[in-house]
């Protein structure tokens, strides 16, 4: 009983995409293996580390525990969609300047969570930044530079508003 192969239509970083997926594909599998977007990282596969975070219909989610079939009809933003015309997004730029990365593996997910945070709270204080990034683990930085990067990004984005 049930489908084992499905066609899903989704809008990824502003582009309409269609993919044939397996019924047990997660959104992470769809992005990486079906659409070739490997910026989103594969890590705990339990929704506990946030490395796989993308923005789905305006809300941050752990793509590793989103059913691929659920992506049908959805709008997805991944790390690949942030830079425009070769220019880094202010959040990416801030991470670079504030040393918000060491190994970089948590970074795409961390930046997508930061984007989701700043999309809803443009000027978060430190407590709000830390709360906004609660679902993202980093084993390298101790988080201080990440928080500084997000604060720097929020100031820069305010300038552009």
């Amino acid at each position, binding site marked *: 009983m*049930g*489908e084992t192969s499905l066609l899903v239509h989704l809008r990824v970083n502003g582009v309409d995409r269609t993919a044939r997926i397996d019924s*047990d594909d997660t959104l992470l599998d769809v992005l990486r293996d079906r659409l070739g977007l490997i910026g989103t990282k594969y890590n705990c596969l339990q*929704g506990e580390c946030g490395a796989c975070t993308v923005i789905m219909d305006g809300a941050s989610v752990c793509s590793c*525990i989103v*059913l691929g*079939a659920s992506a049908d009809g959805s709008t997805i933003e991944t790390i690949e969609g942030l830079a425009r015309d070769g220019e880094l997004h202010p959040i990416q730029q801030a991470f670079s300047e504030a040393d918000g990365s060491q190994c970089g593996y948590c970074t795409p997910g961390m930046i997508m*969570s930061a984007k989701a945070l700043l999309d809803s709270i443009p000027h978060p204080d430190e407590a709000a930044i830390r709360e906004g990034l*609660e*679902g993202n683990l980093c084993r390298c930085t101790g988080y201080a530079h990440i928080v500084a990067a997000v604060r720097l990004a929020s100031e820069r984005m305010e300038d552009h508003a």
Partner: protein
Amino acid sequence: MAVRFAVERPTSLEEACGILAGHPGVARVHAGGTDVLVQARHPARRPDLVVDLARIPGLGEIEAEPDGSLRIGARVPMTRLIDHEAMDRGLEGLRDAMKLVGSIQIRNRATLAGNICNASPAGDTVPVLVILEARVNLVGVHGRRSVPVAEFVVGPAKVARGQDEIVESVTIPCPATRSASAYLRAVRRRAVDLALTGVALRVDDTGEVRVSYCAVGPRPILGARAAALLRGVKPGATPDDDPPAVAAAAEAATQEVTPIDDVRASAEYRRAMTGVYLVRAFRLAHDRLSGSISEPRSQNDG
């Protein structure tokens, strides 16, 4: 290559129940997927069929019923419910609990119905739903029925749901008197962690108190003794000024729970923390009832 599970995407509850009734293997109902997709990788609870509710209309609403009760559709993500104004009037404890589930990413997909059906002993929303006298509304091939959450959650990962039945919505009755509630938990990390002990407490204008604990037994425990000792009691201006009944209730709380040792904490620690968090939840609920709001910034605020 074989898939781990097939997917069904029914367009009506009737169709969904029929699929569940007729499936010979292990089928799981999918709303947000934050438990199902994790468990799909583990041998013990792996389904071979996932029944996705996304194409069924009418499951995504938060509605005030004519009698004042709140009906929450099975597919409402916790984030949307957290932000809902109905959480301000007596249901603050439910908001407290949902804000502690997983992480923002989890809450953007997770549902109340799913949290109940997963029936983790540490499930944060369940003891709150118990003291709020919430009910799950089930649909099956034989029709509809409504069951109190307190009776529906039977044990770890076990709910009183027939194979063909789906939770369509959760109903929270309108409190008969003005009331306030709170949920606090002892926990190691601020997010993506499980309660070591969780205390849900409700107090109303008549001085009536209801208490329930999670993570200290196979399913939420009703805090009958602590609640009885706190009836009509008001907290002092500071914890040092609390009337003796508060300490007595804290002691009673430690005795009416049945925690176990596990990788996260010892039974002894959980038992002791139950008393501590009972007092904190009591103070918070009373502050909310009296209007001198003190919203905790973090779990560690006394």
